[in-house]
């Protein structure tokens, strides 16, 4: 097999380049300046759509054991307190109050989701993130970090829901 001189030259210049690259790395930190391309980027619909975490869907009940749930008009303070206790132990590692962390903050979640959806997300996360369209989008929005199944009872999940109403 003949190797054209041209390709050897190219290889050589690549080697040189890689040497040069090494020196570049000595700089502290780096910044990426995206090069302007002449091609016009086709805008993806995702970019224009509302983020999954901000989307409002008050009809989707999700997939899981909770089929229908009606909330009392008043918040059950005792239940909410119990919910906070469970939440602080089992959920807080990823869901901080009032700020996006590993997952979304629970503040005002019932303005965007049905109570059934919230409870099913807690109780049945694996199936939710693979089948429920909203949960699927949330998984993408939050870096592919999966919602962990914390093995809560329905009663515990219900208490957490009550706690969310107080936030």
């Amino acid at each position: 097999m003949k190797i054209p001189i041209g390709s050897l030259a190219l290889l050589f210049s690549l080697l040189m380049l890689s040497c040069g690259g090494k020196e570049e790395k000595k700089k502290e930190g780096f910044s990426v300046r995206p090069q302007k391309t002449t091609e016009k980027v086709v805008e993806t619909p995702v970019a224009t759509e509302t983020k999954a975490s901000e989307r409002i869907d008050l009809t989707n009940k999700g997939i899981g054991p909770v089929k229908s749930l009606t909330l009392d008009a008043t918040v059950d303070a005792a239940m909410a307190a119990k919910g906070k206790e469970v939440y602080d132990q089992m959920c807080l590692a990823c869901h901080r109050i009032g700020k996006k962390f590993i997952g979304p903050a629970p503040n005002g979640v019932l303005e965007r989701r049905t109570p059934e959806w919230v409870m099913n997300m807690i109780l049945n996360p694996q199936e939710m993130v693979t089948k429920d369209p909203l949960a699927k989008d949330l998984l993408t929005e939050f870096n592919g970090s999966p919602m962990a199944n914390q093995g809560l009872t329905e009663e515990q999940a219900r208490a957490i829901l009550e706690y969310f109403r107080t936030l």
Partner: protein
Amino acid sequence: MKKINYSILALLGLVMVFTGCNDSGKKSSNGALSSNNAEKVYVAPGEQDEFYAFMSGGYSGNLTVYGLPSGRMFKEIPVFSQFPTSGYGYSEETKPMLNTSFGFVPWDDSHHPDISQTNGELDGRWIFINGNNTPRIARISLKTFETEEIIELPNSAGNHSSSFITENTEYVVAGTRFSVPVPQRDMPINEYKGNFKGALSFVSVDPEDGRLDLKFQIMMPGFNYDLSHPGRGKSHGWFFFTTYNTEEANSLLEVNASQNDKDFIAAINWKKIEEYVNNGGGTKMPANYAHNVYDEGTHTATSTMKKEVLTVDPTKVPGAVYFLPTPKSPHGCDVDPSGNYIIGNGKLSADLTVHSFDRMLAAIEGKKFDGEAYGIPILKFEDVLAGTVKSGGLGPLHTEFDGKGNAYTTFFISSEVVKWKLGTWEVIDRKPTYYSVGHLMIPGGNSAKPFGKYVVAMNKITKDRYLPTGPELEHSAQLYDITGDKMELIYDFPTHGEPHYAAGIPAEILAPKSQKIYKLAENKHPMATLGVNDARVERKGNEVHVYMAMIRSHFTPDNIEGIKVGDKVYFHITNHEQDFDVPHGFAMIGANNSELLIMPGQTKSLVWEPKEVGVWPFYCTDFCSALHQEMQGYVRVSPANSNIDLSWSLGE
């Protein structure tokens, strides 16, 4: 011409057809046979095995878990040896498990597992195994598959005729192979004879939580107590031990311990001795032995040194101990499911000696003695013998039972398993093993109710059975189908360490009870971080305690500053997952002990002593999620005289 050609062709064709038929006939019969065998061991993807097999690890000091019939290894349970994979014996919680009167002993030679029984049948609560070198007995939970308890045995050495349990798991029994001076003292070795003692230890097992207690030790003459098995059914209440070196030689045993034509099987009426000690019998003597208990709630082991042991002189309890003469340095001591036959395998013999429990009782009743040894009556051989199996093999070692009236004995020297019939003593079948078989195992084969579907032969020599891996090879095991009249060798698989004995149990007894997670709500570890709000770092002099939580996929906290060179840093890490099979690992650069593998809901602690200034990373070693590679953190280590305050954070 054409005609001839045709006929020659036709003849040739016919010959070809015939030979072809013969060939293909042969091949297809072989093929059918092996494909039939393949089906017997094939566990399709996603399906599960019918039996668990627990194989002792021998010089690995551990216990391995296999599936039968597939021969797949599921787990290595650390027992007597440090296990860096999980941190067992390295973590602060588990270091006490390996404490002994000799200090920290991080290894052993584990031999004979035995599963707990109720009414002589496997109940699957615990499995016991003996440490042979530094005499110990371990109890492993068959719910968590974790070692929960280890008790050391004083006055014992080469803890070999162990760890076999009585019919209702009243006791786990351990006998010394090497007799020693009791108490230990400085004396000439050649004064062994008549002066050394062989301790047989009866360790009681609490029926509720399995807790072990060395109830009494029988101080027997200074023979070697090789193996043992419990009586069952009609012989429940008795225990049988093979002995060798009844010559009491203290050197060149290879020759000097093979002088007597017959050694003994010691028959111990432990119920009688139990009654004796319950009535205040026995002598308390000073001792020093470790009792290590792992608490499932606190995930932490504690080690207590015990200072006293109750000893029993067998001659002080009339009718409790007898010797049954048994030819040729018997090794295996096995009792059939009915409890009537006690089989002694004279390892230098071609024959097996079978004693009858009924005849033994009659001989005791009729006082048919043939003298005594150190005050212990020797029964007349002819009066206790039930029969002899004339096998034609060489070097019989161990016998198991199928519950259908058959026994299976391994022959080390002639490398085979021999099937014979209880009662008639006729040999029914023999199959080769590859090579030099030691123990064999039928699930439940040492109980009143064996599951006689398979026998596993555990071989000492592997040689050419697998692809060579240098001079050191794993051992080989062979699986035989024993459902028919003839045994059929159906599979070959390597085993880890050196399995001596093994214990098998139907999966349906264990699998439904197997624990999946530790509930965070039930975590009573004093150093647990049960909520991320409790995550913190505290300094006590040069000790720094990091209370850390982990969940997919981050540590809380993951940035720690204010650690100094010379500090002793304790990481107390709690896995906040509550889902099956989501462990997280913890690895600290330069850690001189090990990593940790922490199960959901569990807390483990690791000590790290930073020696150099710098910013040192730690990370999760168990691929836990798509963001596992992001599960990392840093510890800033400052000079010893630095005044940087402790601080910790996550995501700030």
